[in-house]
């Protein structure tokens, strides 16, 4: 590929987050008039790559060239100057502002005088170009728009050209909230934009859509590029295969598919788990797994009026937000769910609490010499172990886990896997949302989520990477 012509070119790009290699030596070139389909499963490095391209993250190693010129200090404003625009997966407009005012925020090159009028005409024209026949009023507050309308506005804002020419637009799941008609209008516009010499990086979990629009397919896995070639060579099946690992053997443990009594189920019956079973929730992240867990939890615990019952325990995924109490000691963090049992005549039985802490410290090997230490003195992995202990020490027969192993080292993971096995053997039920394939393969049965609903269910020998990827990536738009 002649890189002199590239809109933007990454060479040998590396980015680490702690021990995690998000990008591990990636070469990525985008030529004008080219649409690249970027695909990969969770944690493959797609979003890191996107954030490098738009200047939000800086590289640990490697070079960035814009139109052939090497750039040292690449940043968000430098990226915008170079004509790189991005539509993010999570909607990122200001809901308290009108559409016109959001245009003002997004485009600093909009002049100072009469900007309201200019922005109004520009965005109305642009919306008309991308989504002909739309009915969005530009004076409307973004907060009052439907999700589809917000996405339409965001796409139109990204393609809007004021003084800097738009050279590259990165579309991260742009069709996720659009219906088929709107999605087709947008795809037609993307095609026209590319034909006129623009470049597009297109990320989607709907593989047909990617194959239809992209000239070139770029498949990532574990921070590396595994495929970079023309789209015409691929069909959906071969793309799914490219995303999965080829070499890894089936290292599954023996599953105990005992169809015993149902321990927990969603009220609508779509999801259920039996006693002693480890049930996985898989699929691309953000496709409704956490919602399902929260619903399970809320349906099976009392509300604030009724008496608490210990049927379900929850292990939070986002440690710092809804797991750890940062000002408390390790012991207190651990004993939180047990306090009612540890209470004697209105006071916490400190001796029993300490005993319990000692027991669990040994059982799950929390690396500290004193359980009274601050929880923050522990590494992330050990903090997570404390949260596991909090759930496991409770008498709850069902434990829900919301991707709890994010950023946890391999050693801890092995510890936790064996702990889960042991507890499941004793008859506990685990429902485990995970974005990592290794963890999903630990499960007896797996539900694959797509677009907020369960797309497939696999058990025993069918829990394979290929099956799960095929179910998470849709073959055709609804």
């Amino acid at each position: 590929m002649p890189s002199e012509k590239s809109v933007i070119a990454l060479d040998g790009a590396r980015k680490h987050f702690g021990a995690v290699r998000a990008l591990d030596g990636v070469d990525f070139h985008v030529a004008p008039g080219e649409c690249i389909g970027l695909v990969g499963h969770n944690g493959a490095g797609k979003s890191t790559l996107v954030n490098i391209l738009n200047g939000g993250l800086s590289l640990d190693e490697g070079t960035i060239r814009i139109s052939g010129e090497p750039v040292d200090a690449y940043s968000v404003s430098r990226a915008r100057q170079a004509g790189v625009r991005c539509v993010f997966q999570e909607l990122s407009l200001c809901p308290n502002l009108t559409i016109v005012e959001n245009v003002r925020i997004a485009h600093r090159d909009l002049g100072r005088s009469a900007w309201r009028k200019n922005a109004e005409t520009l965005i109305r024209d642009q919306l008309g170009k991308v989504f002909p026949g739309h009915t969005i009023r530009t004076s409307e507050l973004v907060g009052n728009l439907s999700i589809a309308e917000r996405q339409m506005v965001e796409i139109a804002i990204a393609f809007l050209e004021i003084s800097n020419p738009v050279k590259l637009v990165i579309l991260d799941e742009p069709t996720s909230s659009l219906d088929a008609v709107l999605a087709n209008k947008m795809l037609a516009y993307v095609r026209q934009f590319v034909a006129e010499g623009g470049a597009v990086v297109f990320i989607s979990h709907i593989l047909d859509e990617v194959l239809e629009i992209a000239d070139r397919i770029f498949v990532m896995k574990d921070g590396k590029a595994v495929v970079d070639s023309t789209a015409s060579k691929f069909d959906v099946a071969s793309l799914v295969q490219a995303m999965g690992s080829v070499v890894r053997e089936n290292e599954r443990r023996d599953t105990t598919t005992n169809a015993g009594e149902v321990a927990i189920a969603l009220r609508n019956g779509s999801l259920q788990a039996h006693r002693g079973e480890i049930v996985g929730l898989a699929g691309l992240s953000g496709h409704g797994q956490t919602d399902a867990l929260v619903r399970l939890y809320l349906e099976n615990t009392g509300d604030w009026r009724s008496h608490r019952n210990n049927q379900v325990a929850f292990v939070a995924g986002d440690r710092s937000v809804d797991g750890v109490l940062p000002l408390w000691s390790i012991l207190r963090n651990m004993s939180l769910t047990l306090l009612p049992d540890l209470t004697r005549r209105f006071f916490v039985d400190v001796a029993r609490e300490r005993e319990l802490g000692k027991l669990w410290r040994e059982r799950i090997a929390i690396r500290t010499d004193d359980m009274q230490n601050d929880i923050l003195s522990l590494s992330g992995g050990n903090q997570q172990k404390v949260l596991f202990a909090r759930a496991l020490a409770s008498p709850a027969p069902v434990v829900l886990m919301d991707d709890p192993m994010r950023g946890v080292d391999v050693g801890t993971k092995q510890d936790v896997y064996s702990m889960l096995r042991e507890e499941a053997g004793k008859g506990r039920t685990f429902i485990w949302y995970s974005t990592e394939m290794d963890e999903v393969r630990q499960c007896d049965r797996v539900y694959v989520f797509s677009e907020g609903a369960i797309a497939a269910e696999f058990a025993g020998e069918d829990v394979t990477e290929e099956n799960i990827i095929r179910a998470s990536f849709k073959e055709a738009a609804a």
Partner: protein
Amino acid sequence: MTSDRLRQLLPAFSLAVLLISVFYIQPRTMSYLGLNLLFNLAVPIALATIAQMLIIAVNDLDLSMGAFVSFVACVAATYLRDTPLLGVLILAGAIGVYALVGILIYVRNLPAIVVTLGMSFVWGGLAVLILPSPGGAAPDWARWLMKTKPPGIPMAIVASILIAGIAHFLVMRSSFGVVIRGVGGNERSVERAGWSILWVRAAAYASAGFFAVLAGILLVGLTTAADANIALRYTLLSIAGVILGGGEFTGGRVSPIGAVIGALTLTLAGSFLSFLRISSDWQIGAQGAILIIVLALRVLLNRSKQGAGD
């Protein structure tokens, strides 16, 4: 849609109800002099409310507002009158400190409530140093400004309309205001567009400082003398004014016109009580009651909107 409109009209509606009750109890207030007396004290409160609103627009809260306005009043009654140049320099410096506080809060990721609470003691202390006992005198021009009698409409009303108009233009119409509210609504998206959040926040705090300085000067113009504790009530009054006027604590949802109306309503609540011959000790309680009633109405409107949406 209709309940959206209703929500916007709620502040004006509550002011009208209160005003009509006052007119009903004491018809003599329905005059040039009467209106001026009713709303005179609202002018500095309205300015302080606008200042507070700028801070709330970036999702922070300023607990030093009352102490700062008191400090400005003390400076205005001493330095600004005796050595105008020094006075102006001190006030400009104070606005600079406000900007620095905004920067400090953002850079060190500190809770604004804690930092501004600390600053309130700094401003309070400085005010006592300048004026250990009540005294000083207002600059003549400030006194003239507050005593002037424009034909037809009382000064208090003219000033309120002017403040509301300027603040509306600055916060709701100008691109400066759009970026400030954008930071309150979704800081990340503003950052991704390449704006410097640091400077936006510094500018929001500096403009808040500017409006608070105006509040302090006009307060002295009204009272003609100052005291280190003259405006301590302004902290809570300004927050209540913003909320009463349709603003919210987070999300960059503020309304400058509503905020001025909120300040007028709170001032009127005090007079209303004295017309009912109820001790002014109950004033704060009455202001609180009005706040609770209006917020309850707002919740009801929101609920009916959600009901209609589903």
